[in-house]
Structures are given as C-alpha cells and as structure tokens.
C-alpha cells in the first residue's frame, strides 16, 4: 500500500477538516440547551429537536420537501432512462442537441431559472400549485440522473441484452430482465443524487413556491431572515442525517464509488 507524504497528508487533513468542520459544529450546536446559537458547554439537550417536530410549519415543509424530492427524482428517472437509451444507442439528427439540452440546467444559474419560471407561471396563471413545483424540480434534477444513466450504459456490454434476445426475450423483456438490472446502480445513484439536489434546492424554489408549497430550505431561509436560534441548527442536523443515511444505504447496497465514480 502506497503511503502519503507529509505534505500530501497535511493537505488531505486540511481538506477534510474544511469540509467536515462546519457540519460537525452545526450538529453539535443542535444539541445546545441554550437559547442562542452556541456550542453546548453545560450539557446536551434535545429541546430544539422537539421544537422542530412541534413546529407545524416546519413539519409541513419537511414532508412537502420529502414528497417533492421523491416525486421529482422518480419522474426524472422515468424520463432520463429512455432518454439515456436513445442518446447512447441511436444516432439521429439532433442527438447532440438533445443531450446538451437535457444537461443544460446544470449550467444555468438557478436564480435565472427561478425568475424565468416565475414569469412563465404568471403568464400561464399556474402559480402556486405543487404539480408545477414538481415540474421545475424535474428539470433541475434530470441532468444528474441522465449523466449517471449515460455512464452506466456506456460501460455496458450490449451482448448480454443480445443474448437475452436470442434466448427468446422480446425487446421489452430483455430490457426489464437484463439491461435494467445491469444499469440499476446508475439508476439508483441518479435517483439519490436527484433526491438530494431537489431536497436541498433553495435558490430557484424561493421563486416558484407558494405559501402552500413552501419547501424546507425555503422555510429555513424565511425563518432565518427573521430570527436565528438553535432550532435552525436542529433542522440542519436533521437534513444532514437524512442525506447521510441515504448515502449509507446506497453504499451498502451498491457501493458509492461504483455509482459516483462509475467503476464497475
């Protein structure tokens, strides 16, 4: 096993510390018994977590965000898998354009998207509905699913699917029984990234949510503009925990390096 030099080791430690320190601190702050954002020194308390669960607006926003993320990630998968198959397997006019179009939400600032959707919805008279919110989230999370699906398909040996065909499977059966299970790590990884991105999305959502559809990040933002108390830390800790748990499940099931780096 190769060992890191002193400089490399220091660098790695600094990077890790820089990435993890804020998360660790916010999680610690969440357990404070005090009334201000401070590190718990006198003891640990769950009072701010209780406050979160007792706060109807936060709970409503939390479930709202969960549903939104799950729905938009699932629909993005339903959309990106066929799109990925078409892009990776067939050559047709406009193929590169379609590929670029589906990936473009990654490079357009969410602020711009938010303003644009706000205008569009105003013109359509469609403001405020949950369905439209889902639609906007599908657009911003599809690139993540598509990238992972495309990566999975490019590393796929197509002869397995051909073998299924020669053994008597129709095209759909061959996809369902052979191709889909083989690209499942890519699909699941894409779904998870989509879920997390939708769950965390703030900038665009500020513009497209209505009072009835406020998502958790938007709720936190609104709350934080008025007052800052340790309940924010508790919500943050909960969000970190949900994301970490999802990552952990995925790593156990498929291996994170395989999904995110594309190793097979």
């Amino acid at each position, binding site marked *: 096993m190769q060992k890191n030099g002193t400089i490399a080791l220091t660098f790695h430690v600094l990077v890790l510390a820089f990435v993890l320190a804020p998360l660790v601190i916010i999680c610690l702050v969440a357990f404070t018994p005090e009334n201000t954002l401070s590190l718990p020194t006198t003891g640990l308390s769950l009072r701010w977590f209780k406050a979160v669960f007792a706060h109807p607006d936060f709970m409503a926003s939390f479930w709202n965000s969960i549903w939104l993320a799950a729905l938009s990630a699932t629909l993005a998968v339903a959309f990106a898998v066929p799109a990925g198959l078409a892009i990776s397997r067939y050559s047709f006019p406009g193929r590169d354009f379609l590929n670029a179009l589906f990936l473009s939400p990654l490079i357009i600032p969410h602020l711009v998207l938010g303003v644009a959707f706000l205008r569009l919805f105003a013109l359509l008279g469609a403001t405020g509905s949950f369905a439209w919110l889902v639609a906007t989230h599908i657009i911003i999370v599809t690139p993540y699913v598509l990238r992972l699906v495309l990566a999975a398909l490019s590393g796929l040996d197509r002869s397995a699917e051909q073998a299924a065909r020669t*053994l008597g499977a129709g095209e759909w059966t061959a996809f369902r029984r052979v191709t889909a299970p083989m690209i499942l790590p890519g699909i699941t990884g894409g779904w998870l990234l989509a879920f997390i991105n939708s769950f965390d999305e703030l900038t665009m959502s500020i513009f497209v949510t209505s009072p009835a559809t406020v998502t958790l990040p938007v709720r936190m933002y609104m709350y934080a503009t008025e007052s800052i108390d340790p309940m924010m830390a508790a919500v943050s800790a909960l969000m970190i925990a949900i994301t970490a748990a999802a990552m952990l499940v995925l790593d156990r099931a498929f291996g994170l390096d395989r999904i995110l780096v594309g190793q097979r």
Partner: protein
Amino acid sequence: MAFLTLEGVSKEFGTFTAVRDVSLTIDKGEFVSLLGPSGCGKTTTLQMIAGLVEPTEGRISLDGRDITREKPNRRGLGVVFQSYALFPHMTVAQNVAFGLEMRRVPQAERDERVRDALMLVQLSAFAGRYPRQLSGGQRQRVAIARALVIAPPVLLLDEPLSNLDAKLREEMQFELRRIQRKVGTTTIMVTHDQAEALSISDRVVVMEGGRMTQVDAPYRLYEQPSNAFISSFVGKTNLLAGTWRRNGTSSAADIGGVLLEASAPEIAAGTPVTLSIRPEKILVRDAGAGRLEGRVASRFFLGSQWLFTVETPIGTMTVSTPNLGVEPATEGSQVGLDWSPDNMRIIAGTAAAA
C-alpha cells in the same frame, strides 16, 4: 440435405461493405467454422444468421423457412458470445434457465433440463454461483449450456475460445467438439485461429475482406489452399515468388535464377507464379544431397519438433522436422533441403504478402 442456407447475403454499413455476396449451405449436424483475420466479415455473417444484424441483401433460410427478416427471439438459435454475455445478476442456474423461462417451460421440466445442461458441461456443482465467482473456462461452459438448453436447431459460436489461455483453449476445443458430437447440433463457429478451425470443424469457410474465398474440409484447405493468402494464413508456409518456365515436357519455377522443378500443366510459360511449401514438407539433408543448399541461421527446439530458419540463395526458408531423439544440424552448418515436388503448391499470380 441443406439445413441452413445463405444465398447472396451482403451487409453494408453506410459505404462500407462488411460482407459481400456470401452463399453457403450447411447440412444438419455439421460443424462449420468461419475463419479469417479480424475485419473479414465473419462475425457480421454470424450476427446475420443470429438475427442481430439485418442483411442488406440476400436470403437466409433455416430448414426451408425464410428467416432473413425474423427477429432474433423468434429464430430460436443458440448463440455463444465472445464475451460470454452471461447475466451478471443471475446465478448459473438462472442464466441457463432463462431461455426456458422465455419459452414458458413448466418449472419441473425447466429444472430437469437445466440440470442436464449443467451436467453436459460438467458444472453441476456450480448451479448456485454467480458468473463473477467463476473462472473464464467455467463461464464459457455456462454460456454453452445456456445456448444448448433450449435445444436450438443451430448453435452459433462467436470466437468462443479467444478469451481463454492457451492450455485451456486446447482443452475446450476438444470439449466443444465432444459436446457437439453428443448433442448433434448443427454448429457454426467464428474464429481467427486457424488451428482451432482446423482441429474441430467438418468444414472451414475462409473469409477475406467480406468475401468467402474457400470452403473445404480442414485437411484439403491445408493441403490445397486456393490462394497465397490462405496458404500463409492457414498454417505456416514458405512463399516463393517467381516465373513459370517450360522446356518440352518438363516445367519449373524460376525463383531468382534458381529453377525448382514442379508440374502444373495448365500454367503458360512466362506467367508469374507463387510457390508454397509447408515447413514440415521440407527434409533437412547433408550439404549437397538436396534440391537447395542452405545454411542454418537459427534453430529452435519446440519439444515435439525442431524449427529451423535456413538461408538459401532464394531467400530464408522455414523448416520444421520431428524430434527423432537425436540432435539435428546445428546453427551455422551447411545443409541441403529436399522435398517432393508433389508437396509444392503452385499458385498463379504473385503473393501480396507472405
């Protein structure tokens, strides 16, 4: 009786013609190899038979039925892919059962047939394993079992042995032939390995640049190659370019001023010819005792035989002699090379490359 027939089959990819006007008739129970260098169209031909590639022109029929445009899942042929193409998320037994499942074979019969197929390829103990837990040779046998379990009229093998190491490859050649003899399935194998094609096929189809250039039994292909390419591709040979000379009843090839006696009545004097003589047909004699003088440039011991390169006035010749238990001529020594003129194959025209 013709079982599988290809009539004037061609395949074009854009402007590139991968397969050109291939016509072939295969009998029931026959083992036929498609042999050629990479890019000669042999795999495309196999894929057209399998239904994975649609021919641009021509007709393919199986047992009197036109299958040219039929979908691969309706043809019912067994295909073994070069990469084996096992389903990684299914166990060995599930892989083998897949074709039966698609045919809605009842569970009890399915289990029995899977068991028989695994027994045939000697993998009964591995039914519950996943492909990744198997060695290359075992995976290959799973692929064969999976293709054979559906009792296909024709078994198609795409370079089935190319991913195996040399020793295993040799074992699997005979294993493949044993299985094919036992089951009696008509088999078509694509290979670029001439030794593989010669050792297990009833007939060999040589393909070059998308065309079929010779169809023959392995022995005849080896002894009577129809062109210079085949003579050097199938086995080793010495190719000598020269001009045909006639003098009354005798005829000879003039190779750079040296006359080599040979008989080929149909060739006119002055025609450029290529002579082909196999290394094992040449005898090493004492200096002055052969048709050609030479000096041993190098000598390799291969166990069962010796391989010499001999420098002669007409170029370097490769000679192999059986190991008879005594040490033969050493490097640097003068020798005479001799052969029977009957063993020299005369091909009209010049060889492009040896």
